[in-house]
């Protein structure tokens, strides 16, 4: 049993860390979050050139064929640097594309996403419904060789920059996953600013938007299982991001405690601050264990993989919020300012808490999988 990252995994970690420091320092994050899309095409192409998009996908689609632990390594470092852009959205879409029945669509679109030529997202959430895989209200009506989409999705990540959008709709056989082009007729993408400016959200309205019937990725049970699995991969990314983010907040707080003086002493010499830092450490490390275990279990297909994913999402969500709040408190006034970087992470983590279901949602999943199965 070895919980440690392997040598190649550590090398990957270092190269992502170096890349982020070089290509996306804190000032750049701030510049990008002030834009409408939070995307830097050069940065995005750089990430793609490194092979980090779809690195867990098969080599036939130009992926690297690595596991989810490697994906988590990349996501943790991107999270540590709070890198803006559609990494999560594109990873989710690419994963879903790779899992869906249509290999023709995968062959056509996946290489584009992986090479950085296109960005992707998944339109899932609807008003009045949460993350349960219930019947969507957006409809997909097939007529001849066309599918017509109608309805509204909200809180769609990076919809404003996506070239490819997978829509979770209701078709004749239940859930129907349809590949749409957000810029086509009948599709309206409207920005809906949220708490986190580094990952933009939008409302997407479909009014008789038509796409070829060949764009149906999967339907019914097949669609449900592909969507479920792709969301689990998304959760691994989000959890790893929260681990990286917590680590940054912990490091920044400890660094500050070693330089800031009050009452003529370093605040880091006060037990009130030390106890807080130790708590942040404990929850950050525990989040790391939970997130990486979920990545490993999902890759290996262990019996407890689904539960491991829900445990990671519930634990990391609560921990990241705790670490963020504690970091702000330990900093005092400066931690509450716009000028300090803490709020970027604090906000990103709040958005991450919701993505793919919050801690409460996943605790119910844990209850379902453990209590009801006992």
């Amino acid at each position, binding site marked *: *049993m*070895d*919980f*440690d*990252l*392997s040598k190649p*995994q550590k090398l990957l970690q270092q190269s992502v860390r170096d890349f982020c420091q070089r290509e996306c320092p804190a000032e750049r994050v701030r510049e990008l979050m002030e834009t409408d899309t939070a995307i830097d095409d050069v940065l995005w192409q750089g990430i793609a050139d490194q092979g980090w998009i779809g690195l867990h996908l098969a080599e036939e689609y130009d992926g690297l064929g690595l596991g989810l*632990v490697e994906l988590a390594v990349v996501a943790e470092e991107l999270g540590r640097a709070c890198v803006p852009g559609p990494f999560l959205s594109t990873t989710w879409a690419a994963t879903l594309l790779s899992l869906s029945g249509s290999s023709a669509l995968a062959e056509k679109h996946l290489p584009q996403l992986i090479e950085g030529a296109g960005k992707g997202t998944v339109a899932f959430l609807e008003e009045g419904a949460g993350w349960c895989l219930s019947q969507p209200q957006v409809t997909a009506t097939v007529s001849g060789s066309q599918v017509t989409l109608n309805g509204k999705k909200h809180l769609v990540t990076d919809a404003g920059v996506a070239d490819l959008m997978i829509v979770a709709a209701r078709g004749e056989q239940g859930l129907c996953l349809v590949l749409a082009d957000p810029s086509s007729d009948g599709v309206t993408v409207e920005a809906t600013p949220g708490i986190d400016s580094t990952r933009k959200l939008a409302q997407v309205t479909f009014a008789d938007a038509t796409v070829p019937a060949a764009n149906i990725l999967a339907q019914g049970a097949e669609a449900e299982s592909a969507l479920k699995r792709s969301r689990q991969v998304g959760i691994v990314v989000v959890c790893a991001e929260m681990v990286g983010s917590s680590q940054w907040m912990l490091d920044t707080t*400890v660094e500050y*405690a*070693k330089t800031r003086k009050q009452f003529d002493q*370093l605040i*880091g*010499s*006060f*037990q009130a*601050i*030390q*106890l807080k*830092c*130790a*708590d942040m*450490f*404990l929850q950050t*490390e*525990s989040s790391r*264990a*939970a997130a*990486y*275990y979920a990545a*490993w279990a999902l890759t*290996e297909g262990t019996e407890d993989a689904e*539960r*491991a994913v*829900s*445990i990671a999402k*519930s*634990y990391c969500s609560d921990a990241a919020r705790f670490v963020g709040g504690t970091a702000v408190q330990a900093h005092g006034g400066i931690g509450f300012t716009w000028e300090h970087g803490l709020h970027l992470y604090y906000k990103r983590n709040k958005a991450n808490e919701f993505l793919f279901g919050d801690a*409460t949602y996943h*605790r*119910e999943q*844990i*209850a379902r999988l*453990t*209590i*009801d199965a*006992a």
Partner: protein
Amino acid sequence: MDLNLTADEKAFRDDLRAWLKENVPEPWPATLGTEQTPEYAQYLRDWQRKLFEGGWAGVSWPKAYGGRDATPIQQSILLAELIRTHAPEQLGVIGEGLVGPTIMVAGTDEQKARFLPRILSGEDVWCQGFSEPNAGSDVAALGTKAVRDGDDWVVNGQKIWTSFAQFSDWCLLLVRTDFEAPKHKGITTLLVDMKSPGVSLRPLRQMSGDSGFNELFFTDVRVPVANQLGETNNGWRVAITILMNERANLGSSMFVFIDQAVKGLIEQARTLTKNGKPLSEDPVNRQKIAQAIAELEVYRLNVDRALSGLTKNQTPGPEGSMLKIYWSEMYQRIAQTAMEVLGDVSQLAGFDNGNCIYRYLRSRGSTIEGGTSEIQRLIIAERVLGLPKSY
């Protein structure tokens, strides 16, 4: 990263499981207060002997000293399996886990030859005399004194919170031998025969009603200089080695112990009803129980991660402090969760064999014994995060 057990680890576990299946004795009837009887002591000694004869005592010890060179992961498999099979508590735990390894590092050849085989075989049971009424978190402030008289040290003072003292043949004792030096530099470690004239003990009753700990009194106790462990006034270094081992040790057994509590809670919540519905169908209860499950699982992962690090790096470090904080505070939360979910009846001594009450009360001690949560956090702040020493 590969969390599968290696072939060696698997073989170790399978051998052990087969052996335990044949050898674990009937559990001791759990009646409050019997922990201090000679019959119980004999029951535990018999079990220790059986473990030794089966080759399962001191597995982590080097082969040269009769062990198996087991890795921390294998050792953790052993601890977990012992609890899983409801094996009796290990009377030799202090000798095997703390005293033996310390003698290996700091002892003379004569001391090694004399003490180590008897620890392994279970002939000698050990306790450790560290804490004192006025030296709790600040152990180095201990005041039990030893004065040299010819070839003996003469010991006077009091120790407290001494587990297993009522069963022990020997005590690893920290004493002050230099009253002028800074407090860390005037401590010496002695190996004391508990049958020496002047040693007496008194069981210490806890809020949970049981008496696992003792107070130990030393009145003009003569300890031959040959039983001094390590150099004079260098005992603090010895103590630190022991404390690090202590924190690293508990991890995996606490997982299984608390896991049994959570499994029991799930079972009860599914069986007991409120307003005609199983408690486990109430959404608030489901949230609470799921939180317990999640915390416990993350603890298991933390332990595995620490063990895999320990297997590579060998020396236990401050990460033991994190595990100690985690399990002890989780134990309290889970004991509380159980009583919240199960409701009013959980306060009855007759409910669930008194386990709900026991855990609720006993877990208060967990965040204090073996270094309080506050001390553990300060260790993390200072030794892991590099913040200035604050005490």
